[in-house]
């Protein structure tokens, strides 16, 4: 999976997406190669997860995964709160692909 928690970062990994602070300011750009010092800084920031290059996304194409989601929700999406659940799943599936 392209998204990992800071404790799994290792020197030499490259960022797939920029690391930003809470305000959205870019601290480390896309493609940055991580060093032990940078990893320590990322951990200190308390970031939840970091996107890393070269890790494999799921084998099903993204479009297929998302249309599968639509199909599964078809008969229940009008029901109360199912829109929140579906939205969480949709964003989650997108994250799986980085």
């Amino acid at each position: 999976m392209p998204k990992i928690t800071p404790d799994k970062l290792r020197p030499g990994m490259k960022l797939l997406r920029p690391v930003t602070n809470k305000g959205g300011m870019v601290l480390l750009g896309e493609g940055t190669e991580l060093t032990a010092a940078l990893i320590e800084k990322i951990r200190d920031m308390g970031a939840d997860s970091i996107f890393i290059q070269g890790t494999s996304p799921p084998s099903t194409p993204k479009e297929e995964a998302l249309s599968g989601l639509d199909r599964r929700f078809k008969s229940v999406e009008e029901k109360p709160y199912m829109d929140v659940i579906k939205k969480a799943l949709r964003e989650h599936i997108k994250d799986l692909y980085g």
Partner: protein
Amino acid sequence: MGNVAGIRDLRDKIENINALPTIPSVLKRLLEVIESPRVSLNEISNFISNDPALTTKILKMVNSPVYGFPGRISSVNQAVILLGLNVVKGLLLGVSVFELMQKTMIGLWEHSLGCAIIARLIAEKKGLKEPEEASVDGLLHDIGKVLLILRFPDKYEKAMCDTDANGISIYEAERVHYGTTHASVGSWMAQKWRFPQKLVDVIEHHHKPHLSKSAPVESAIVHLSDILVRARGFGFAGDHALMAVSPKSWQMLGLSEADLRDVLWAFEESLEMTEDLAL
């Protein structure tokens, strides 16, 4: 079926499932141990330790992210002490019974494992004291399906065919074919196996968690886990119909979209570490 006598007859047949010639002898002995009224931690732990294959499976499970002790449990004794009798009993039943299912309902083990992981994650998020118990709830919530399949394989196959043909859920199809559902069947046996009342209640009410009296929070957790695992497209539980969340239970859990995404993400990470839990 569907009348009182019919249901009683069905319950008898399910409760005496141990007499079926198709039940492997290891499982028969295990069910006897589980059912015995005064089974001790020692007996359970000896039973597991005497069977190397079972020991491996149990240790793999307790050290997996399904439970909260990754890589820290090295013996069955330690597992039993850390997790408690009921959790180990549930685990033992889970790993032994689902093995019989691999051909009839491919994906039910994955579905159950997925629910076990998500139920624990939600329980942790909600600050429940014993999140491992939520994993057992998740692992065993569909045990009734296994029992119905073992006892009436042909009929269950028809019920499964009905789901796609008539656009109904397996829960509804069971009602048509048996006059009752896997939720009730599972709770009968959970009672017979002397599981805690809360677990019996969760199994009975995981489709209608707002009706649960003794375990409303736990039932809501398993209900939502069931929906999330299916919505994620992980495993297979007998049909392709997603059930709508019970509004009351959803409100009771009070989870936000961000909470769900946290849970789902932690679920993916757990899955990566659970790949070798195939039975």
